[in-house]
């Protein structure tokens, strides 16, 4: 196990800089998720830590050793790739033992470690199969086994669950979390799926356009997004946004002059703002913003309501069930502490960030 320190890491391809100075301190045993839309630089950063990409500027330290010019094989890391990259001509046992054999570890010990790992992952009966004889989920497990068996300083995961179907993905997510709690190996996990990042990580690093937007514990990011981007990116269903003028710190005046009472104590000198409200922070009562219900989606444990508020679509999430029907008018109230204020700006379009895999 080991710490990982990234100091002002930069990456350029020719004259194009794609990573603009990222700094990150990862503690021993910590599980850190790098999350962001495609092209944000998260995979590039991971590959730089692995040694698969050169570091254009800055330093990367594993433990107290600067690894900038150290070959991947000498960094004592293990990596799980999105497409698994199993060696097709080797069976599961040989795939898992390959790295150990490269290290010239005794045959008996390799055998023992491979068997132990196979047992942890439930692969005992598949050890003599070739990768092509395995299902997608089994291949994913072998890829993990290949990393675990090495007992490395750092685990690197590059979108390891993206190729699995939804059900298997949720199952493997829990297994990865359980494994980390058991092995306590420092882990850096890249994903574009914010749910994966939130559920797995001790700390989530949101990246956008080659910089770190915000880092913090999952719930900290959820409760206190520092930017519109993070607010829009974290949370599902996503936060609702309304743009308008804040008048007297008590009213939000939208573009069509609709005035909505908004209980904000301190607008912090802002007048033109984008207001963010999470779907579950609305309460439906007798007074508040009038909205017309368009869709009601019960899931049993909770109900999602889509409504129109002065021409804007808002989503409301309530615990339990409701008798509300489409076409009815409801009144939405918000407690002041749940109102997020941002400088007025276009809301990032995150349709392409949603998990479509």
């Amino acid at each position, binding site marked *: 196990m080991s710490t990982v320190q990234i100091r002002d890491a930069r990456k350029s391809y020719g004259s194009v800089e794609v990573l603009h100075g990222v700094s990150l301190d990862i503690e021993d045993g910590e599980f850190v998720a790098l999350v962001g839309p495609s092209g944000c630089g998260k995979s590039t950063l991971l590959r730089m830590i*692995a*040694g*698969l990409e050169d570091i254009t500027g800055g330093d990367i330290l594993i433990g107290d050793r600067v690894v900038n010019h150290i*070959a*991947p*094989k000498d*960094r004592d*890391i*293990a*990596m799980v*790739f*999105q*497409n*698994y*990259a*199993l*060696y*097709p*001509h080797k069976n599961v046992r040989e795939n898992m033992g*390959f*790295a150990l054999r*490269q*290290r010239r570890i005794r045959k008996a010990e390799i055998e023992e470690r491979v068997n132990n790992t196979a047992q942890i992952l439930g692969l005992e009966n598949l050890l003599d199969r*070739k*990768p*092509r*004889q*395995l*299902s*997608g989920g089994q*291949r994913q497990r072998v890829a993990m086994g*290949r990393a675990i068996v*090495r007992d490395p300083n750092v685990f690197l995961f590059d979108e390891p669950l993206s*190729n699995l179907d939804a059900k298997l993905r949720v199952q493997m997510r829990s297994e990865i979390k359980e494994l980390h709690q058991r092995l306590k190996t420092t882990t850096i996990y890249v994903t574009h799926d914010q749910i994966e990042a939130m559920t797995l990580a001790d700390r989530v690093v949101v990246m956008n356009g080659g910089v770190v937007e915000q880092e913090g514990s999952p719930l900290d990011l959820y409760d206190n997004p520092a930017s519109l981007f993070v607010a829009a990116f974290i949370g599902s269903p996503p936060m609702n946004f309304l743009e308008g003028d804040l008048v007297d710190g008590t009213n939000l005046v939208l573009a069509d002059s609709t005035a909505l009472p908004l209980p904000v104590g301190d607008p912090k000198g802002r007048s033109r703002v984008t207001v963010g409200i999470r779907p579950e922070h609305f309460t439906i009562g007798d007074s508040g913003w009038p909205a017309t219900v368009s869709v009601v989606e019960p899931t049993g444990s909770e109900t999602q309501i889509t409504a129109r508020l002065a021409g804007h679509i808002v989503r409301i999430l309530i615990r339990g069930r409701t008798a509300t029907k489409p076409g009815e008018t409801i009144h939405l109230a918000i407690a002041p502490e749940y109102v997020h204020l941002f400088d007025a700006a276009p809301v990032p379009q995150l349709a392409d960030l949603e998990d479509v895999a």
Partner: protein
Amino acid sequence: MSAPAPSTAHRTRTSTSHRLRVMGGIAVSILFLFPIYWMVLTSFKQQVDIFTTPPKFLFIPTLETYIEYMQRADITRRLVNTIIVAAGSGLLSIVVGAMAGYALARIRIRGAATFGLLILLSRGVPPIALAVPMFLVARKLGLTDKHITLILAYSTFLIPYVMWLMRSFFLSLPRELEESAMIDGCSRYGALFKIIIPISLPGLLSTLIFSMILAWEELLFALVLTNRHASTIPVAIAGIAGDTVNGANWGALTAVGTITVVPVVVFALLVQKWLITGLAEGATKG
């Protein structure tokens, strides 16, 4: 098991197109195979049967020509030479060409694309334009009429050929295979030899066999660069065909031709077994 039966109309359409395809295949096969069939047929004829009009399909076959020519020292020596040169240039080219192809496919080198294109363009030069300069170079180096001369000469066109075939083969393999190997403790060379080469064996073998066939039947360089000692079998055929003293001996021509073709056919059947499919299967997602 319980898949719905295809509709009758659909079935009829499929079987019609299937029949058309089979007939097309037969037509093309006849077009290509008839000359070879005719050559083999002629090689078993006696001189009197060769020139009859209309041509004879039924005759008393004879092995006379084969026996005569297989006993001639120049023919057997040329056969041995051809084997040495085809194997030598094939092996040299597969080693050099595959490594060059790998470099072009995987290693970020400035100007790699231009470099690769230049090598490919060199194939555009007509061999006849190179034959004389090559002869002069070989003579200066004291390399005329030696096996190594032809091996080197053939490598000039086989290496680019192997390089481009193997480049696209390597490009079709997921890059993560080597990256994974390199993280698992291999150097770039280790990843190449322990992971990539074993996976690519079928592709390498079929490319090798194709290269050897190309070298096997090459005539021009063999004609220019060799004389007695290292001459190959196509040169013998050209000699028989161009015999201005006795006129072309068709029996000999077709018999030696058949002897030349047989190993190629055997090789081609071997290639079939090593078709480049489904090799990296299972490496990645389902």
